[in-house]
């Protein structure tokens, strides 16, 4: 393993065959009542299987918009997004989203039925196997006791865990996480981050994670894409982030390096 490195351009070019998700020179524009805004300009990156790929940047760098485009909720005005070689045309259960908002759970369904909802509707599983799968993943996020509760009785951290369980239970090609811990208090956020890493250790799923916290990016990711704002452009890619350890201070140094790069 090499030490964490930040190279000038998106280095570490992957062979196109190995990539799970391929985003190539994507430009995203959306219209507000008064102007057409360019959220990202010619952004390229590719995510390999079992990557924990983080999109990091200050607000206005289009990272959430980029994630929505991968989710299929927006169409790029330039460039292409392919997942396992298939072009992304619209939202689909092969790319499960976890949102920042607590209201992403269906309030009229219990935790168990929330997790079962996409399994039944998108994967067309029968109720019995959907329930077995849902219970398995609810146990994985440690919410077995809350399985029959309605979302409004849960804390923010528990709601986000349910959303993660719902996404993982679908066993999608890639899990898309849009600042899922940003609305949590600091202590809960840390626990949730640790749990996410532990889940990843067990199942090695692929995740595309959006955040504006440098520390969170270093903790969660093994690769980080740094974006600069107005419009969003790729500034650098950080690879082998795993090797940065909080104990010997290398994570702290990397954090400072990234900070200087983003706010130079």
């Amino acid at each position: 393993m090499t030490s964490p490195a930040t190279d000038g351009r998106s280095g570490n070019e992957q062979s196109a065959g190995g990539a799970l998700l391929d985003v190539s020179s994507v430009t995203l524009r959306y219209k507000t009542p008064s102007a057409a805004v360019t959220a990202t300009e010619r952004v390229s990156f590719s995510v390999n299987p079992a990557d924990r790929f983080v999109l990091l940047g200050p607000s206005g760098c289009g990272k959430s918009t980029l994630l929505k485009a991968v989710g299929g909720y927006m169409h790029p005005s330039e460039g292409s997004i392919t997942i396992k070689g298939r072009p992304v045309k619209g939202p689909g259960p092969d790319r499960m989203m976890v949102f920042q908002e607590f209201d992403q759970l269906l309030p009229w369904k219990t935790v168990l039925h929330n997790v079962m909802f996409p399994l039944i509707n998108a994967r067309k599983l029968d109720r019995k196997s959907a329930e077995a799968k849902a219970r398995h993943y609810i146990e994985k996020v440690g919410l077995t006791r809350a399985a029959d509760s309605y979302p409004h009785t849960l804390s923010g951290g528990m709601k986000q865990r349910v959303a993660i369980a719902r996404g993982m239970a679908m066993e999608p090609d890639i899990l898309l996480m849009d600042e899922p811990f940003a609305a949590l208090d600091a202590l809960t956020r840390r626990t949730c981050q640790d749990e996410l890493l532990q889940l990843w250790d067990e199942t090695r799923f692929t995740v595309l994670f959006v955040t504006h916290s440098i520390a969170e990016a270093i903790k969660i990711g093994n690769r980080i894409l740094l974006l600069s704002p107005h419009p969003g452009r790729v500034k650098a890619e950080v690879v082998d982030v795993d090797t940065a350890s909080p104990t010997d201070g290398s994570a702290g140094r990397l954090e400072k390096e990234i900070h200087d790069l983003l706010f130079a």
Partner: protein
Amino acid sequence: MSSARIILRATAETAAPEAERKLTWYELAWESGFVRKLLIILILAVIWEAYGRYLDNPLLFPTLSETLRALYDRVLDGSLPARAWASIQVLLMGYVIGVALAGTLTILAINTRLGSDFLETMTAMLSPLPAIALLPLALIWFGLGNGSLVFILIHSVLWPVALNTHSGFRGVSQTLRMVGRNSDLRGLNYVFKILIPAAFPSILSGLKIGWAFTWRTLIAAELVFGVSSGKGGLGWFIFENRNLLDIPNVFAGLLTVILIGLVVENLVFRTLERRTVVRWGMQN
């Protein structure tokens, strides 16, 4: 300067003052909304009885006991239940058709822009038009019969229900919409599995308003033209007895209208609320 350190406290094992205490029976009773409302009704009943006795003029204002006796007699001889049933049948017919139409219109409106424009224009034009004002026209079109009544009932329930449902649909959060599309839901599936439950608080309040509107419209319409196919409804019962100057019976009729309203509000809608929006934490 000493370094930072943690000093552990021994947890106090002394007996705590009572952390929880059973409520006495009158505190429990006061907590129940039903008991409090019953108390209000009892006080109003006492005032009614007292004023009726003080006035001592059954032609103007019968006492509560006279009204209740009239109600009891009319229920026993079967005339009041038959009239109430006749009203409710017509009412339900209009209500169900109206709600179904409102549902269809709103689903069209949420899926197409033209449908949405149509709904907005129609509601803006027809919602302020009192249903009873359409009655003369309805009588020409559908004749003296339940057809005319059902027509104006549909008019009175359709617009408020459609308006509430539509604004409920539009208020469904972007996140929930995205969650629905992420689960591959499209078309009617999306409407029934995401939009309707998510908008249920507004839909329910639309249904309640619609119910009150139809009930009022029906009684008013029966007062105006009353009898159809040999037996009229509650409105006609009230009108008839006023003509006979049997005022206790008029009051008994009015009381029946109120009672049915209370029963539907407290049994049907309250139960529906408890089982849905309250349980889901969407309303307290």
